[in-house]
């Protein structure tokens, strides 16, 4: 009788628990997907694994990737090593052997992991709390996150190189935050590989034998959607990701001198002076300005979303973005008034005073107000806007000069006599009017790329691929003006670095402008002389 009673009790408990589970609204969580919301064909050209057989993007058939790309872009290109088949270790799930061997084969990696939160996810109260959240969400007990958990593909029984999706299995809120970069569009981190390979000059350069010359492109542009670009392997430290140094390997150089402009600004100088007093272990939302940070870091300003909340991506609040897209709020004399020329796959002009951007500006002021008065910060940012308007006006004037020269037939060598626009045959074949818009598509179809392209954004090809007489000297000058000096002046002003603003930005921009003027005058003169001698 007693036994029966216990049995009854147990079964009752069982039933109630089952019923309770059924009552809970089943929160259906789809597995993390970096390409969420994109169509199938898109996924097929960027995500689906093809090994090293073909490239990525619309022009994937025109080049084979570098072997290194399998590490930069594992989703697309990773192939497990053939020398030593690791499948036996995965089949038998011998977790101990990973460390036994790699402790000697790659000791740095194992030592990093040992000091990481993954090895001891419950080593501190804070960490335990965060781990408990993950445990609850993933329905797993996490006493150690092991090599095996990230590197073993249990379906194929092979080693895999983790991507953001693997991290997202546990770190879902961060992953979802990061995924929101797609809302804002390029340039962003999550689409960096797409940006790398969608441009026709990447495939064209590979076709012309410059694939490995583009190593520099691949290093930044292929891995930015992997979490380890900021939280480096195999420590994956959150604190490390909060330090400005996490950004500067990519964010530097002539088109986006963020490291230089921040590093030499007063903000950066104070950071370097007092770095050891900064407490990077605190989550950004709990940073007490002045106490934990005496000066803002890249992350503190750029990852601030709004109303005291921080978001796990740095692009949400961008207004001027990279500085290449012309603003709506100007009157243009050149063809920039028609920007983006009907091309559907590039962003429209920016309306600096749109409702959305005005709101974003107020969020910036919330950050600045941690230290600066509202009036000071607002005045500063407004002067940045004015700087950008002036710079875009100057670029417009320069573009007008070049376009007039072309229209009057003085461009030398003329577009008909030189190499066509990069991968023109591929653009015509692979992209439809739906992407390019009718006029641009027809231009490629009828002229086969034998026409000049200047200015934002397609004119930037000259920065990445120089072909036979294409672009010419004057086009190169204009490229430097709008893609280098304008952007350097922008970052110098935005990050408060006077020297970058003037000597790397405004001053060379003006010098380039007069050079363009005199080059145009010279070409016109030579053209006139030639015509005169022919008519004689």
């Amino acid at each position: 009788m007693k036994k029966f009673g216990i049995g009854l009790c147990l079964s009752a408990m069982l039933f109630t628990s089952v019923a309770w589970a059924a009552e809970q609204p089943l929160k259906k969580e789809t597995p993390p997907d970096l390409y969420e919301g994109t169509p199938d064909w898109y996924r097929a050209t960027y995500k689906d694994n093809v090994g090293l057989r073909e490239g990525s993007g619309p022009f994937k058939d025109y080049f084979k990737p570098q072997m290194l790309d399998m590490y930069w872009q594992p989703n697309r290109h990773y192939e497990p090593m053939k020398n030593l088949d690791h499948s036996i270790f995965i089949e038998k799930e011998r977790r101990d052997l990973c460390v036994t061997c790699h402790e000697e084969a790659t000791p740095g990696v194992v030592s990093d992991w040992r000091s990481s939160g993954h090895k001891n996810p419950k080593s501190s109260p804070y960490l335990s709390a965060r781990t408990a959240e993950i445990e609850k969400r993933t329905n797993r007990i996490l006493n150690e996150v092991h090599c095996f958990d990230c590197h073993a593909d249990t379906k194929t029984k092979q080693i895999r190189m983790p991507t953001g999706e693997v991290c997202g299995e546990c770190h879902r809120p961060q992953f979802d935050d990061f995924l929101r970069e797609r809302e804002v569009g390029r340039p962003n981190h999550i689409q960096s590989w797409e940006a790398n390979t969608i441009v026709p000059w990447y495939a064209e350069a590979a076709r012309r034998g410059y694939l490995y010359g583009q190593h520099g492109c691949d290093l930044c542009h292929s891995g930015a959607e992997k979490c380890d670009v900021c939280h480096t392997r195999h420590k994956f430290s959150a604190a490390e990701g909060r330090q400005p140094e996490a950004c500067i390997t990519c964010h530097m150089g002539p088109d986006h001198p963020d490291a230089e402009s921040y590093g030499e600004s007063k903000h950066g100088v104070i950071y370097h002076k007092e770095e050891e007093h900064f407490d990077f272990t605190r989550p950004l939302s709990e940073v007490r300005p002045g106490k934990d940070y005496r000066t803002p870091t890249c992350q503190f300003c750029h990852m601030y979303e709004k109303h005291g909340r921080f978001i796990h991506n740095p692009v949400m609040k961008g207004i001027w973005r990279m500085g290449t897209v012309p603003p709506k709020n100007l009157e243009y004399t050149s063809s920039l008034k028609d920007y983006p020329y009907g091309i559907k796959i590039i962003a429209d002009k920016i309306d600096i005073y749109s409702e959305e951007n005005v709101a974003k500006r107020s969020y910036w002021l919330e950050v600045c107000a941690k230290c600066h008065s509202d009036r000071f910060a607002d005045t500063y940012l407004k002067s940045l806007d004015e700087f950008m308007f002036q710079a875009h006006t100057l670029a417009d004037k320069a573009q007008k000069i070049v376009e007039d020269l072309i229209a009057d037939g003085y461009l030398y060598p003329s577009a008909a006599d030189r190499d066509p626009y990069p991968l023109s045959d591929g653009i015509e074949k692979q992209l439809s009017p739906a992407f390019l818009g009718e006029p641009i598509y027809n231009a490629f179809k009828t002229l086969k790329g034998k026409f000049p392209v200047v200015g934002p954004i397609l004119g930037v090809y000259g920065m990445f691929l120089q072909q036979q007489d294409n672009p010419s000297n004057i086009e190169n000058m204009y490229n430097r003006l709008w893609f280098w000096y304008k952007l350097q002046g922008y970052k110098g002003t935005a990050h408060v670095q006077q020297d970058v603003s003037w000597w790397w930005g405004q001053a060379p921009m003006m010098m380039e402008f007069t050079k363009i003027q005199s080059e145009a005058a010279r070409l016109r003169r030579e053209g006139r002389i030639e015509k005169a001698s022919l008519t004689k």
Partner: protein
Amino acid sequence: MKPKVLLDKVGFWRATAVTGAALMLSIAPMTVSAVNIPTEVTDLGKDTYKKYCSPCHGEEGKGDGPLARSMLPKPRDFTRGAYKFRTTPSGSLPTDEDIYRTVSYGVPNSTMIPWDILTEEQRASVIPVLKSFSEAFEVRKPDAPVTVGLPLRPTERAIEEGKKIYEEKLECWKCHGVEGRGDGPSAAEQEDDFGFPIKPFDFTTGKFKGGNSAQDVYLRFTTGLNGTPMPSFAKELTDEQRWCLTYYVMSLVKPEGTKK
């Protein structure tokens, strides 16, 4: 009567079993396990070697597999027949059981993992393959394994005696360091028979390469490590002294966490 009649079916198998058992028993003191180690190179052995060993040790056993170049210590070159961990005297070839033991238990502090992930047959089958790489196995035979007598008791006195040997008599510290961290004055210049630098063992790790039991450590002093600068002390030290030294170096082990 013809033997054929004498040996009926049942009787035959019984006789075989008894003979076999008797033979096994007679070998038993020498063998570590009862695994049947083939004498000839088999297809299984070749396949297993190719799949799991050759990536590091090379297709021809020269220690030059595709993964070897970035490794330190370098994978063993089998062509010399120099095996570190043996029960046989210094310089001698190893017994099959010695090789089987190393394959099964691995070598701590190296990329040689315990290959207990493979079946016993697979592990045993690679032994003739390894031996086939060196002409040493054609001209020489392994010497008889050294006998490990009854161990001395690890008393304070024994450790004290071992310390004297370590520091004064044999000057072990010249390579292994006074504290046994493998950082003695001659440590940096040591190289193995193949010309690769080799680190003297760090006793503080406690992961003795040939096994962690006192008997294993005792065997290293008695047999030396072929192919490395570590000599045999079978002549210099009495059996008792070797046990003392064994207990002394084992007392140098530091608790985990002090090394890495």
